């Protein structure tokens, strides 16, 4: 009755119906299941599925090449040809596209395709359902009851998503990518709501989520906050945990596009013309990179572009993505680009990739792992030593602030990439290697670019959930960092 077509059939039918000189078709199947709770009780929940077909028609004519993009959700089989005609109509009626180029073809010289171990083109699209959260929901129920009994209030959200993307072109390309994504965010408050703590984890399948363990960690942090300390605004030596580092560096990554840098209008523009590629941003040997095949952070290994922008191009659909260093050994190494914007900027083609890793190079490098035990007051790591855990960094702190996470981050000044935002759900005072109490929240005004120049210490990189940007970007691995003079601009009375 529903007459549902598989996404693969939709791609083939749309390409077969195309009359334009070139055509790109993207079919996506998305499913999601979620639970949300507040004050120890469930608030909302749901399951949803959507199906999206995007047709990009290319019209080459005397005055240039135009692209028309039409994207529709929930179309029926009989409507596929309509979408193709609409896209062709849009292309014919549109002005030439500034990023016009050849489509990527099946004969593209670089071998690429499906991520290792991923299903092939012909198998059914991936799907999630409420059952994925079944065991988690049972454990959550126990945790909510335990928190209620202990006088804590829990708030939070759990979601699991699966997106299967099928990309086909009139040049013979057929690519498929399945993207699972999930997260749990947990916020614990004291019964009077005066103390608050937060944690979050990314997960691909919910088998690795220990909700009781997360709650126990927050109970410990609420205990830290039983002693409160008022501190004035000012610049403080500050320990940023991985989630806070991720939110600042994701914004930096989003701001590191080739086109506008070359136009002289971003923090990565060189005064007088060109970009700052090659310029040292940090004295620490840090690397900011993306890799579609990064373990645990896997993402699409080819460009999926529904609409062109300054550094993305619908003509690049299917372009293979490979590991890219944006900052290497402390120096700016690459800026995100499409083939078009890379040519404008005179730079190699390095399209954006949907994950981000920040790490310090250490000669005695250790794999990312859970926190080490012990909190001995130790000096910072000597050159060549393994990067420390956050616990080790706390233990080696004479006096400084320890943050939980950052929130409501917005750009204030693109010239320096000055960002503002708030600390949230726990700012702690560290004295002589121990947390001695909870401090009021602050509004910060800081630039992540300037911050790279004031890194005193970079810890061991671990997977993290970006609290601020997790809705849009949730595959990140980041270290805790120690920053000199983090600018706490004013006190926030919020708790």
């Amino acid at each position, binding site marked *: *009755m*529903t007459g*549902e077509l598989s996404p693969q059939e939709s791609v083939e039918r749309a390409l077969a119906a195309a009359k334009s000189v070139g055509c790109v078709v993207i079919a996506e199947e998305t499913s*999601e299941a979620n639970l949300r709770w*507040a*004050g120890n*009780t*469930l608030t909302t*929940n*749901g*399951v*949803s*599925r*959507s199906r999206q077909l995007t047709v990009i028609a290319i019209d080459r004519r005397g005055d240039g090449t135009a*692209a*028309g993009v039409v994207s*529709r*959700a*929930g179309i*029926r089989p009989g409507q596929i040809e309509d979408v193709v005609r*609409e896209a062709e109509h849009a292309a014919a*009626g*549109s*002005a*030439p*596209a*500034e*990023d016009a180029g050849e489509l990527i073809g099946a004969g593209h010289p670089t071998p690429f395709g499906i991520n290792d171990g991923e299903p092939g083109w012909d198998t059914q699209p991936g799907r999630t359902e*409420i059952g994925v959260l*079944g065991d988690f*929901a049972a454990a959550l129920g126990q945790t*909510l009851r335990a928190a209620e009994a202990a006088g804590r209030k829990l708030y939070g*959200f759990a*979601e699991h998503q699966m997106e299967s993307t099928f990309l086909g072109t009139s040049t013979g390309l057929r690519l498929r990518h399945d993207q699972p994504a999930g997260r749990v965010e947990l916020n614990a408050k004291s019964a009077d*709501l005066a103390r608050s703590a937060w944690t979050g984890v990314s997960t691909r399948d919910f088998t690795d989520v220990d909700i009781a363990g997360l709650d126990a960690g927050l109970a410990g942090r609420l205990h830290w906050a039983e002693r409160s300390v008022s501190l004035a605004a000012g610049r403080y030596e500050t320990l940023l945990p991985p989630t806070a580092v991720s939110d600042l560096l994701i914004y930096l990554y989003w701001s590191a596009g080739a*086109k506008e840098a070359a136009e*002289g*209008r971003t923090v990565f523009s060189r*005064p*007088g013309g060109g970009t700052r590629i090659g310029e040292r941003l940090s004295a620490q040997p840090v690397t900011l990179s993306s890799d579609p095949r990064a373990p645990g952070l896997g993402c699409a290994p080819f460009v999926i572009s*529904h*609409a*062109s*922008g300054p550094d993305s191009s619908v003509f690049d659909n299917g372009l293979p993505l490979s590991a890219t260093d944006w900052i290497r050994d402390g120096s700016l190494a690459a800026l995100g680009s499409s083939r078009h914007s890379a040519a404008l900027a005179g730079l190699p083609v390095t399209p954006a990739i949907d994950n981000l890793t920040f790490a310090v190079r250490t000669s005695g490098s250790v794999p990312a792992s859970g926190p080490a035990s012990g909190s001995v007051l130790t000096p910072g790591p000597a050159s060549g030593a393994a990067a420390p855990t956050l616990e080790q960094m706390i233990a080696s702190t004479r006096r400084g602030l320890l943050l939980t996470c950052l*929130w*409501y981050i*917005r*750009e*204030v000044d693109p010239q320096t990439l*000055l960002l*503002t935002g*708030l600390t949230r759900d726990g700012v702690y005072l560290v004295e002589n290697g121990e947390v001695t109490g909870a401090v009021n929240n602050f*509004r910060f*005004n800081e630039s992540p670019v300037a911050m790279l120049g004031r890194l005193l210490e970079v810890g061991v990189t671990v997977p993290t959930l970006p609290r601020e940007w997790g*809705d849009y970007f949730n595959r990140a691995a980041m270290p805790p960092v120690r920053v*000199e003079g983090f600018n706490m*601009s004013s006190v926030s*009375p*919020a*708790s």
Partner: protein
Amino acid sequence: MDDHESKIDQEFAALPLRDLADAALAQAGRLGAQHADFRAERIRGQQIGLSDGNLQTLYDADDSGLAVRVVVDGTWGFASAVDLTADAAAQAARQAVEVARVAAALNTEPIELASEPAYGEVTWVSAYDVDPFTISAADKVALIAQWSRDLLADPAVSHVDASLRQVRECKFYSDGGTTAIQQRVRLHPQLTAVAVSGDGRFDTMRTLAPPAGRGYEFLTGTGWDFAAELAELPELLAAKLQAPSVEPGRYDLVIDPSNLWLTIHESIGHATELDRALGYEAAYAGTSFATPDQLGRLQYGSGGMHVTGDRTVEHGLATIGYDDEGVAGQSWDLIRDGVLAGYQLDRRMAKLEGFGRSNGCAFSDGPGHMPLQRMANVSLQPAAAGPSTADLIGGVTDGIYILGDKSWSIDMQRYNFQFTGQRFFRITNGRLDGQLRDVAYQATTTDFWGSMEAVGGPQTYLLGGAFNCGKGQPGQVAPVSHGCPAVLMRGVRILNTAAEGTS
């Protein structure tokens, strides 16, 4: 059928909407739901983006689907589907009931809804003349490209970014008693001129034109004078790039509605959402300092402060006939004589806290999401015979006149905020005295509104707003308008954003 009704998207109206609703509601009832409601939606969107007059982005979206929401034994269940068939509607009802049964183990607060009259079969269409989806993309691109080229022709302008977003939203709702079919149209044109100086400095100046619940006529002379605004942009930008950097300190501010709407949105709009005040958004969007125990007592601002919530103002982005729970659009006080007087409600929150009837703030951004309490048009009312902007400026010895929104951020209880703007003019002895750069104002909500000495008259009033207010998990976006007059604030803290970024 009147002329109004004939505007409704014929493809949407021709769907068997009532059959789908019947299938879903009957199935939910058979499976034991105490409440069930059904929505079907079609949302068309088009985004146009130009870089230096060249077409960069042309994207057409056309999303449709259905949603079923149920209450089973006091627990919510929600499910959506993309196929607009009776089978899919019944299947979504089954899924919604299943979700409610899985979720019941976690629920300790039985869901009850405030009652609302049944309105029968109703139709509502927003106020616009020309549906932007009837204009060819080529014509729209040509108009914006010409505006871009006109700006680029000025030597002060190095680059021009231009965009036009348009939405036509069709909603069908039925709970058995009320069956509503509604359509609204909105658009948001923006042009930003960029100046790059030889020494590596750059700055931007954006149009102040707000997003509006209007049709294509908004771009051709109705409701905004784009020609006049664009004509003055290059000179304003050139002067801004050359302007002195502000000296931080406390200043008297005259704030234009093109800037103040966003401060209202963040510090009043979100703070008077009852679900936030009760802690339902505590882990994400945050809570509110304006808790219900302070209703009728909290001194929010100075005595001249009168703030209303409404879903009725003409051309408002949050304006609609009936909300996503079948509640008719209303207008009410949020702050009266400077004191907290009300909240924004949905049917569940209204019942839970004893407010009686919902004031109609339930909204879902599409069939895939469950409705939440979302923001009404929250507006600061002008003083009936209040002063002009020039009068307000005339009352300032040493201050700053701020126009246009730019950067914004506020804390999770809506106390501490920081805003920048597009244009800052120094006020010296009651007169404008050239532009300033690097200005941000930072304050605590009640201090800020308490410092409001004068509220401008109706002649200074403007309806601003945004397409993209975010809330909830999974995240939802909602369009909302905020009207306000120009105001005079005394002694607000001004930061220098360049100094803030220098260690």
